[in-house]
């Protein structure tokens, strides 16, 4: 990192440059708060490095073009796409590639209208709000509905493509969605694929990673697992992963919320007991084991 880029007239100290924009702490925060996701973190580091160099090149008048920064995030539900988008926005903002750094998160509903002439003003309004920041389009493949040729989604796509091309210095667009559907979306809209510089794939979390995420979430909420509960939760993750509609970290958060509910119920059931702070903070094995995930027959699902 002590390399100095020497120019005829200018020299640049990379370390000073890096410290002056303060992205080191954002990257560290990313490492600290996001468990796993190694390929994603690597890509973000690479992008951050590229942008840092690009910024220096601009200052030395070696380049005047605005780099294409539009991205696509693909991955299963609950793998952290939205969270990473927020971090990317602050990295881009610190490096000066977006002027304001806000993230406007939309889905098809906010872009596509319901009757002729409704779509363009709607899409433009969202674009105007996102100017100077990042437009995050969740489940972007819904914009394109091949089964309905009169669908207004195509109109929104055309406006988006035009702004993505002509106002690259004003707006960064991030498309997000599940991997296979996004592939189909890009295949039928080649204009999008070529305008997007960075395709980032979010892998599913492994079981130990999910456990680490659960413990991190609990720590943030000032809860903790007892030793038994932790064992039970490891079994819970393994079982839950095999069930349908598993959405990674989001499922974990929902499970924790239900366990907090059961814990509160358990504590309230015995009104005469004198509680220590530790009792209120800890989740016991019984709170975990009451989950319907541990029931083999589906007839008692209401107990969840």
């Amino acid at each position: 990192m002590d390399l100095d880029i020497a120019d005829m007239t200018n020299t640049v100290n990379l370390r000073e440059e890096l410290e002056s924009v303060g992205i080191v702490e954002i990257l560290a925060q990313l490492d600290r708060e996001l468990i796993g996701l190694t390929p994603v973190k690597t890509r973000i580091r690479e992008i951050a490095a590229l942008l840092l160099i690009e910024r220096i090149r601009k200052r030395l008048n070696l380049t005047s073009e605005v780099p294409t920064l539009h991205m696509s995030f693909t991955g299963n539900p609950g793998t952290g796409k939205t969270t990473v988008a927020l971090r990317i926005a602050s990295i881009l903002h610190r490096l000066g590639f977006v002027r304001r750094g806000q993230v406007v998160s939309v889905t098809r509903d906010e872009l596509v209208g319901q009757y002729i002439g409704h779509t363009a003003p709607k899409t433009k309004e969202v674009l105007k709000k996102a100017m100077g920041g990042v437009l995050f389009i969740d489940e972007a493949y819904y914009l394109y509905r091949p089964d309905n040729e009169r669908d207004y989604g195509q109109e929104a796509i055309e406006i988006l493509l035009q702004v993505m091309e002509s106002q690259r210095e004003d707006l960064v667009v991030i498309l997000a969605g599940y991997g296979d559907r996004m592939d189909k979306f890009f295949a039928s809209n080649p204009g999008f694929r070529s305008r997007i510089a960075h395709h980032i794939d979010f892998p599913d979390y492994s079981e130990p990673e999910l456990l680490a995420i659960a413990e991190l979430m609990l720590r943030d909420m000032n809860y903790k697992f007892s030793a038994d509960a932790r064992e039970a939760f490891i079994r819970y993750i393994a079982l839950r992963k095999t069930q349908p509609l598993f959405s990674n970290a989001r499922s974990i958060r929902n499970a924790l919320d239900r366990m907090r509910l059961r814990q509160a119920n358990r504590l309230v059931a015995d009104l005469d007991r004198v509680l220590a702070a530790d009792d209120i903070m800890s989740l016991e094995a019984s709170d975990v084991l009451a989950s319907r995930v541990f029931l083999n027959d589906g007839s008692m699902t209401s107990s969840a």
Partner: protein
Amino acid sequence: MRITQGCFSFLPDLTDEQISRQVQYSLENGWAVNIEFTDDPHPRNNLWEMWGLPMFDLRDAAGVMMELNQCRKVYGDRYIRLSAFDSSHGWESVRLSFIVNRPKEEPGFHLERHEVAGRNIRYTTRSYAADRPEGRRYG
């Protein structure tokens, strides 16, 4: 005759960059910016037509500039003004309003003197542009 209404109208026309800076100043104050156009330059004409709705919740001037450029494409031969509305006291009131586009030729005003009883005179101003029908007044 160059008409002078609103802010900055005694200055040379603002460049796009200067307009953008003024818009950004308005947005940073939390004001919503609106685009209006007209081809009736009379100073008492307060019914300008709106170009879309006022733009709420914007963070960056680029959004307003995008709309302004589209308005110029359609009504580039007319007067266009930006107004910034402040709603912080419970109702929308204009904080800043300035002309950002004007016709190439501004024919000016005719001053009509109406002689009434007792050698009194009443004055009327009438824009030469308004002699022609709406939509065909300039260019």
